[in-house]
Structures are given as structure tokens and as C-alpha cells.
């Protein structure tokens, strides 16, 4: 299966099958109020406490567009380099369900607010792959049905009813489950960078419908099945693998694929049919007569553009090209908004503290962050936003290394102590007397002692066993409890041993 995740190829009895995926991601727009009403969008409120007359579809109630949601959709479109449609239309998508109070969802059907764009995926081998975005439209979320509250009745919570969603529809460009997972991660990262969606999949602010089909390489697309409402990257990958294999098994047994909507059962690791094409709703889309077409001008788009921060792709390019970071470090740092924010703050504080340029410090800061900090966070199962060592504290530590107060070796110990106690680097160094000794006289005296006490090793070294140089360094460091400045130690040893 792990092969299939990376290759997207299923080796069937009759030959290889290629997977084809397209994703529809529903991302909850970050806004205080709902798409067409003033109700709060706060997560975790008491059931039915964030419900206005409009959200409950009381008679005579009318929707009024929330400009902030439009702004966020446009910003998202711009972040994906997409076509922005200055004229778009809200339609009604009609169907009956207990948690859909209006009996229709206000959505955008024929004329969405955002058209074609691109999401760039960074592949493991360092290459990039562009996945097409078909469109982004704004729509209302439905309420939530609670089936487990009563033996006879379903309860309905309308807090989510009317909350703004962006439906971000990809082209059928994805070929491996891993790509599909990376697509979701990358999209999530972009949304979080620009703040148009919090990307919180556990709370349901981001969900994906995955269209899966299989075909022989080079042939036209096969019949697809839609896997509904996936809320984790892991499940998406599992579900695609299961579904593609299921389709291959049917095709190889001489069957045909029914176009249908399926649900992924995470417990069983299977997909099962939810409704067939025949049972599919006829949504009877038509323009919502309660709303005017959505229109805005170039100035509005420009304002949205100006409000965009540096995006992950841009940032990665800058870190590599201008600051000389490795592709790996740059990728890790930009992958999450929190990482990127941390790095920016760390570097800024370090520049301020040392007076050196970004370029001189960038590599060192990224190394420390991606190895020492991430290692400790991983070990402690902590998220970077909950790091006990703040960027400023990290910069203080690195600053001590840069100005030679402590060695890199000591820095590791100091960091461990910082991570545990939350104390500042300078305080720990002071308290434990860890300051690096660069006093040549003091080190010379120690080196002299070591040479006197280890005549055998001195002789071996001088007769050509170069490797023993490390032994002398170690002895010197040990004698200074690691505080000796390694550069000074090296210099003195060479002088004394090599004569």
C-alpha cells in the first residue's frame, strides 16, 4: 500500500492502473459573522445560541451579504494566482434536510467569485508540481444533525447554519494519494498564511470531498466516485487507496463503476455507498432573487492584494535565494504559518541582538530551529505555538553563540535547560558559570598540564597519528568543563604539539 501512496499505480492482474483524483475542499471563512447574517461564528457555543432569524429561515427573512467573507474569498483567489470575477451570482441549491432551514443552500453555481488558479506542490525529490484550481465559490454551511440525543428524534443545532464556506475545487490533476494529501496540506498552509480560514480540520473548518477514478495510463478518465466529508489528511490517503483498489477489483472482474457518492468509514477503513447517481438530488439551481449579483471593482481587488502577506512559495524562494537556506530547511520553515512566523521573529530578534545581517545569521538560525528546537518539540509532543522557548529567547541563546560567549556544544545544554525551566539563556550561562574561556593564558596552562601528563599520546601524535589531536581537544574541553573556546584550544594545541 505504501507503494501505491507514492506512485498512484495499482498493479492489477491485468496490468497497471493509474489513479486520478480531484478535490473539493470546503474551507470555513474566517469572519466574525455568518455569510448572510450577523450571527456569531464562534466554535463550541451552546447549541442553537448563534442563530439569527435569517439562519433559522423564519418567514420573511432576507439574506444580506457579509462583505468580509467576499474579501476573504477574493484574497484566497489572489493567493492562488486565480482569476477574480468582478461579477458573480449567488444561486439557490434546493434540497430538503432537517439541518437546512431554508430548504436551499445559497451557493454560487454558474458564476463563482473566483475562477482558475494554481497550487504548487513541493515534491519530496525537490521538484514542484502545479495542480490546477478550477474555481472558488462562496456558500452557506448547513446546521448539524444530532442523531444520538434521543431514541425517537433527531436534534438540530443551527449554530453552523449560514456560516460562510469557500468551496475550492481542484482540477482532476492529482495522480497519487500522497499528492492529494500534500495538496490539502499546501492549501491549508496558504489559507492559514493569509488568514482566510483557520484550517482546523478537527473542528470541521476544513473538509474535503474527494473524487476518485482509475484508468489505464493515457486513456480517458474513468467513472468517478465522490468520497464525502473527509476531515484528515490521513483518512484522505487511506480512503483513496481503498476506493481505487475497490474500483480496480470491479473493473478487473469485468464490472463497471457506478457513479455514486460514498462515505469513508474510518473504523473499518472502507468506503460504502451513500447514494447512487439515480438517487442524486436535482438541486434546481437558480439565481437567488433575494440577492443582487455580487459586483466589485479593481480598487477592491487591489486592496485585497495589498493585504496579502508573503505567501509560502514566495517565502521559500526568498529564504533559499536571498538568505542561502537549504531547500530542506526552507521547506520545513514555510510549510506552516506558525513555523514561518517563528523563524521570522527569531531572525529579527537575532539581527537586533547581534547587529549582524540577516544573511550572516539565517543559516545558523534555521539549523537551530529545524534540528534543536523541532527535535525538542517533537520529543515533548508540543506544537511550535506552544514552545516553551520563544523566538526572542531562542535569539538570545544564538546570540551568545554568535558573540562567542558560549560554544555551540554548551548551547545545546543551555537550550535543554531553557526548554525545561523556561529560564533565559544568559541567566543559565551566568548561574552555571558556562561562559566560554577564551583567555589564552589560562588555556595554555591547562594544555601544558595535559601534554605533561600524557607523554605516550604526545609521542604517538608526533610520530604521525594525527587522529590523536581530537584526544587532546577532548581532554582540554573536559578540563575546562566544555567552556574553553574551541578555536582558541585548537590554535594553542597545534602550536604546542606541532611545535
Amino acid at each position, binding site marked *: 500500500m505504501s507503494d501505491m501512496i507514492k506512485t498512484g499505480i495499482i498493479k492489477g492482474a491485468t496490468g497497471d492502473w493509474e489513479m486520478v483524483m480531484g478535490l473539493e475542499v470546503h474551507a470555513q471563512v474566517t469572519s466574525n459573522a455568518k455569510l448572510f447574517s450577523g450571527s456569531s461564528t464562534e466554535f463550541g457555543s451552546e447549541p442553537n445560541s448563534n442563530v439569527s*432569524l435569517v439562519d*433559522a*429561515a*423564519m*418567514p*420573511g*427573512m*432576507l*439574506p*444580506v*451579504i457579509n462583505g468580509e467573507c467576499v474579501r476573504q474569498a477574493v484574497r484566497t483567489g489572489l493567493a492562488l494566482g486565480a482569476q477574480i470575477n468582478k461579477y458573480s451570482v449567488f444561486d*439557490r441549491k*434546493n434540497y*430538503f*434536510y*432537517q439541518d437546512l*432551514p*431554508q*430548504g*436551499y443552500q445559497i451557493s454560487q453555481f454558474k458564476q463563482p467569485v473566483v475562477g482558475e488558479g494554481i497550487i504548487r506542490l513541493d515534491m519530496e525529490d525537490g521538484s514542484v508540481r502545479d495542480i490546477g484550481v478550477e474555481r472558488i465559490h462562496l456558500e452557506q454551511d448547513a446546521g448539524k444533525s444530532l442523531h444520538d440525543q434521543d431514541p425517537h428524534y*433527531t436534534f*438540530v443545532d443551527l449554530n453552523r447554519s449560514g456560516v460562510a464556506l469557500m468551496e475550492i475545487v481542484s482540477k482532476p490533476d492529482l495522480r497519487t494519494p500522497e499528492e492529494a494529501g500534500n495538496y490539502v496540506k499546501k492549501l491549508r498552509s496558504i489559507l492559514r498564511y493569509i488568514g482566510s480560514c483557520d484550517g482546523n480540520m478537527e473542528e470541521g473548518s476544513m473538509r474535503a470531498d474527494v473524487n476518485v477514478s482509475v484508468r489505464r495510463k493515457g486513456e480517458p478518465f474513468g467513472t468517478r466516485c465522490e468520497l464525502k466529508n473527509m476531515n484528515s489528511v490521513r483518512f484522505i490517503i487511506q480512503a483513496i487507496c481503498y476506493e481505487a483498489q475497490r474500483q480496480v477489483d470491479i473493473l478487473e472482474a469485468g464490472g463497471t463503476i457506478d457513479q455514486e457518492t460514498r462515505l469513508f468509514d474510518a473504523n473499518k477503513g472502507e468506503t460504502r455507498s451513500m447514494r447512487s447517481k439515480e438517487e442524486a438530488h*436535482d438541486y*434546481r*439551481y*437558480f439565481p437567488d*432573487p*433575494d*440577492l*443582487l449579483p455580487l459586483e466589485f471593482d479593481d480598487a477592491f481587488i487591489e486592496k485585497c492584494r495589498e493585504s496579502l502577506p508573503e505567501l509560502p512559495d514566495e517565502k521559500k524562494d526568498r529564504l533559499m535565494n536571498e538568505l542561502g537556506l537549504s531547500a530542506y530547511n526552507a521547506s520545513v520553515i514555510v510549510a506552516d504559518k506558525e513555523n514561518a512566523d517563528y523563524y521570522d521573529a527569531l531572525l529579527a530578534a537575532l539581527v537586533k541582538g547581534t547587529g549582524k545581517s540577516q544573511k550572516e545569521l539565517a543559516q545558523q538560525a534555521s539549523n537551530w530551529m529545524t534540528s534543536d528546537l523541532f527535535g525538542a518539540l517533537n520529543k515533548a509532543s508540543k506544537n511550535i505555538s506552544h514552545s516553551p522557548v520563544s523566538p526572542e529567547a531562542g535569539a538570545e541563546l544564538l546570540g551568545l553563540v554568535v558573540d562567542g560567549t558560549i560554544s555551540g556544544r554548551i548551547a545545546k545544554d543551555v537550550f535543554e535547560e531553557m526548554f525545561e525551566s523556561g529560564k533565559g539563556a544568559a541567566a543559565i550561562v551566568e548561574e552555571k558559570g558556562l561562559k566560554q574561556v577564551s583567555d589564552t593564558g589560562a588555556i595554555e596552562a591547562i594544555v601544558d598540564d595535559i601534554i605533561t601528563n600524557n607523554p605516550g599520546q604526545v609521542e604517538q601524535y608526533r610520530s604521525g597519528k594525527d587522529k590523536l589531536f581530537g584526544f587532546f581537544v577532548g581532554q582540554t574541553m573536559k578540563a575546562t568543563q566544555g567552556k574553553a573556546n574551541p578555536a582558541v584550544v585548537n590554535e594553542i594545541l597545534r602550536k604546542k604539539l606541532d611545535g
Partner: protein
Amino acid sequence: MTDKNLTRLTIAEARDGLQKGDFTARELTEAHISEVEAARKLNAYVTETPELALAMADKADARLKAGDAAKLTGIPLAIKDLYCTKDVRTTAGSKMLENFVPTYESTVTQNLFDDGAVMLGKVNMDEFAMGSSNETSFYGNTINPWKAEGSDKELVPGGSSGGSVSAVAAFTAMGATASDTGGSIRQPASFTGLVGLKPTYGRCSRWGMVAFASSLDQAGPVARTVRDTAIMMESMASYDIKDSTSVDRPVPDYEKALTGDIRGMKIGIPKEYRIDGMPDEIEKLWQQGIEWLKAAGAEIVDISLPHTKYALPAYYIVAPAEASSNLARYDGVRYTMRKEVPGGLQEMYEATRAEGFGKEVQRRIMIGTYVLSAGYYDAYYLKAQKVRTRIAEDFEKAYEKVDAILTPSCPSAAFPVGEKSNDPIAMYLNDIFTVTANMAGLPGISIPAGLDHQGLPLGLQILGPAFGEETILKVAGVMEDAAGFTATANAWWKE
């Protein structure tokens, strides 16, 4: 002054009397409450609110006394039962909303109440405003106060605003709110000898009005005179940020438009409104109207509105389509009636909607669902919308040449209860002259112009360009003077 005299006053007269202190709002309201009670045979009111009315009247008296009265302070009105009224049951003529008490006040009624108007009660209507005779109401037929000479047959008041016109024509209210989707203000006004104004789409807020067809629905008043209509219109109209389709435009003092001077105005006569089978006397009345306008110094211009004949069929696609979606919210889940049956959600929906909606509403939901279905959308709904554009263009062209247009209001006078209730096509034809204004979003007013051979009122309609309410009110005022229509229904319901 006797109670009877008080109820015979126009709004303008009552306003002046109240402000002069000739009588109090309480007296005026009490006089109307007793007329409401005396006219229950007409079944105009679904819900009477006498206590509320008196409380509102007392407030009005306080305002009058304090000298901060508005034009409608202390004027008793009937409110069509599709305006949501806070703490007062609002049924829209449907069993579905039999126990629905809104927690909010519609913008239009709020505007009226802010101006001090008094609500006597909620008046009957065709269910969800779907009907032209008031016979589709779950709360029974409203009866027209008028009867044909020498006949005892009960007549329909028209619809859907049947309760509104019946209440005003029977002198149980001085004016009433109504609403017009395809003619629901103008046709009933015409059937009962009243003035009814459907303003430009977007002139009044639709917020808090139970929706029938959102792109066509528009609030408007019915009253006994053009001046009263103007007074009510001024209060009802407003821009409302809660209705995205309402238009941000100042509300004029409509009463000031009633100058009586239409000299030099150009009035269009559209040949397409001369239809087969229209009674001669309507044709004659139309001619009479033309003469009145000429005599008042207006210039008559023959015009053509070539797409008129497509308006009614297109209307009966657009309106049901929107209705099928608008009425989806009445599903038994929240505030409507619910029919509990064995089974699940689907069964509950079916049982609730089968019992909660009457036949005509069900018919329109089915038509609307059909025309929006995959594979039929382009042929029906999309095409109907294109027709709509053509109709609007017809009017735009016409208004390059004329200031207003004169047509009959309806192809007939009021007809007996039951006569057309089993023939939807015949019923739908009632809207043939009125529906064009809804399709184009333009204002139209019906005024009583004469009586037919049975002694029943007939109306003429004046149509105007977008936001041309002042123009059509001015023309209507001149025609009202010329027609000198003073007939009223015999108060047979009191016998």
C-alpha cells in the same frame, strides 16, 4: 360626530380631524372596532386585535396631544396577514402557519406604526398570496362587500389581497396594507371600488413579508382615495439595508404630487391591452378614461408593448419557480405545523406539506419544481427570464415617448364565489393586465372609474416608469376627480 360618520372619513379627513382635536384616536379606533365586529360575515379579518388597537390609539392620542403627530398618527388600518407582526399571529392564509407568532415586525408595518398608525387586525388573503379570489385561504373565503344589483350571490373580493380590500370597502378600516406579485393589489382594488398602488420593485422593503415570489413581490397600500393612497405610500416606502433588493432613494412627499395638473403630459394607450372577449363596457370605460385625460389637457399617444401576450405565461413560470423554493422552509421542522406520522423525516415532510398546504399552493410548488428541474430549466425558467427582459424593454421604449400608460385594471368585474375556483386558467387570466408591471418591476395604480351594468365597480390602471409613483398618483388624482366615483357597497352584512 357619530361612529358611522367617523368610519366614512377618508384618511386625509381623519388626520385633519385628529389634529384639530375634533375627535380622538381612541374614538376613531373604537368606531372602527365596532364596524369590524359588525362585518364578520365578510370574513375579512383572520385575527382581530382590538386591545392592541386601543393601546396604539392611546399612544397616538398622547402623540397628538404632544404635537409630534405624523401623517398617520391615530389612523386605524388593516394589515394583510403576510406582514409579520410582532407578537401577533401571522398566517399568510395558510394552515401551515396557523400557530405562527412572529417575534419581529416587518419593516413596512414598523414604518406605519412609527408614524402612529393603529392596527385593527390581520386580514385574510389567498394562501401565500397565490390566488385572485381569496378562495385559496385556509381561513375561508373573504366576501366582497359589493353585490350585483338584484342578486344575492356572494362575490369574491379579488385576490390575493381580498381581506385588505374587503375591510376597507366595508368601512371597517381606513386603509390597508396589501402586496402585489402579479396583480394582488390592483385587481382586488378594482373589484371593490378602491384605489390600489403597486410601487416600483425595491420601493418598499420586503423584510418581514412572507415571500411568495421574491423578484416580483412588492408591498403597497389600498385605500378609498388617491390622496389616502399617497399618504400611506409615503409611510410604507423606505430603503432598508435588511433587504438587498430595496433601493436607496429618498421617499418623496407623494401627497404633494397631487397637483391636479396634467396638462401636456403624454399618456400611452397600448394596443395589446385590447384583448379578445373583453366586455364592451370595459372597453368603453377605457375610452372614457382617455376622454377624461384629454379633457384635462393630456396628450394621448398610441403605443405598442409587443411582448405583452407573453407576460402571463412567463409569469406563471417565474412566480411558481421562486415560490417552490421560497416555500421549502415550511417543512414541519421548526415553526410550522407538523404532522407526526410513522416513519422518518421524508414521511414527516410529505404528511406535513400535504396537510399544511392547500391545493393551489401545491399546484404552484409542483409547477415551480418542474420548471426548475434539470433538463427543463433552459426551456422554461431561463426563457421566461428572457421574456421578462423583453417586457421591460418594451416599457423602456414606451417611456421614451410617454409619461404614463392607461389600461383597464382587469378583464372583468368581481365574479361569484366558486365560479372560477376549479378553472385555474380562467383564474390566472385575472392578472393579464396587471402582471406586466410586476415582470418589469414598474409601478401601477388602479382607481375606481365606474360601475358595470350590474352595478359593480370597474377599475382603470395607470402604469408608470421606475420610481414614477408621483407621476401615476398625479394622473390618478385627475382621473379620480373626473370619474367622481362615489358609489359604496350596501351594508348588507349588517342585516
